[in-house]
């Protein structure tokens, strides 16, 4: 087959290495999608990590002087948001590494193991990001609507900037998740069940 690229190391008649269809357009598509996914996860991490809002509340009044206390909302207060930041940070490091590998990694070849490792690592990171995003989304929904059955009050009406920034980070993370899923699916469909290449035919 003219459009199949066999990785170095395949020997006569032995199915030793995986075969990947070498399609330049596919490679550039994966590279672009991964670049956008990298930007999305990095922005989700950064926006949630610097998310902070402080309110000063008048607690009591003594004579004519009001006593104020400041209440802060930070991402460290909720374990779900901590997991969100960590998951998106790890995923953006993974995306960066994969981008670098695609750019300069063609010289090093670990006997075709690379074509196995990339989808596996991609899957693990997709699972991580999906966990982080969904936890943050549901905690954010709880913060926005409260829960009357459990007597949990909503906090988004007071900390509106915090909620808006958090919502933006969640949207960025969801976009990154969808892009990473697409990249993963393309990498999986590029793999093929090995057909033995017979090199013993001499002209």
């Amino acid at each position, binding site marked *: 087959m003219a459009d199949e690229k066999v990785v170095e190391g395949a020997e006569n008649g032995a199915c030793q290495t*995986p075969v990947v269809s070498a399609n330049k357009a596919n490679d550039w598509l994966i590279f672009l999608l991964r670049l956008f996914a990298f930007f999305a996860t990095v922005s989700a991490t950064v926006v949630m990590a610097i998310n902070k809002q402080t309110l000063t509340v008048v607690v009591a009044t003594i004579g004519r002087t009001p006593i104020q206390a400041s209440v802060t909302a930070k991402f460290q207060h909720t374990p779900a948001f901590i997991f969100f930041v960590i998951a998106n940070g790890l995923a953006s490091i993974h995306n960066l590494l994969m981008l670098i590998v695609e750019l300069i990694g063609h010289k090093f070849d670990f006997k075709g193991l690379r074509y196995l490792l990339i989808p*596996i690592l991609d899957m693990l990171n997709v699972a991580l990001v999906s966990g982080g995003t969904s936890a943050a989304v549901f905690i954010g*929904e709880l913060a926005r609507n409260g829960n009357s059955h459990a007597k949990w009050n909503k906090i988004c009406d007071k900390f509106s900037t915090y909620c808006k920034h958090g919502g933006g980070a969640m949207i960025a993370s969801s976009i990154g998740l969808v892009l990473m*899923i697409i990249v993963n699916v393309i990498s*999986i469909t590029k793999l093929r069940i090995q057909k033995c290449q017979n090199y013993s035919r001499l002209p």
Partner: protein
Amino acid sequence: MTLAKRVPIFLLRLLALGASVTAAVVMVSARDSAQVLNVTFEANYTNSPTFKYFVIINAVAGGYTLIVLFCPSKVSLFRFLLVSDLIVTLLLDSSVSANIAIGQVGKHGNSHAGWLPICNQVPKFCNHVAGALIANFVASLAYLVILLYSLHIVLNLPKP
């Protein structure tokens, strides 16, 4: 595909089916009521959209696994099955993660937001939810192993 390769996946899918159906059933049957100052306060899975999401996802995963169990494994369908397995794994993973987050708030509260823990008032409900979470976790682990094993089969690496 040889029988030796199909049997582990079949067993894992059976495990995942049992785990996700158990999770959905246990969550639906979680119920407790508490009396606070003459007001009866019922805890149910419909109280929180996260728990409803949990039941829906586990029902979908169980139904999908049931359909796939009785599907003849042709080689051409295999890669499509891999992609749909990936999506179901993601859904299970997201449901366990969101519910652990809500469960953590229910058990320990969140002092910064002024949310008090409720597990002291409705302990039976909390235990049922914890059991359902464990079952969901087992289902998502089983699906992850199915996914990795299918990827290994697709690449058809030789045995060392």
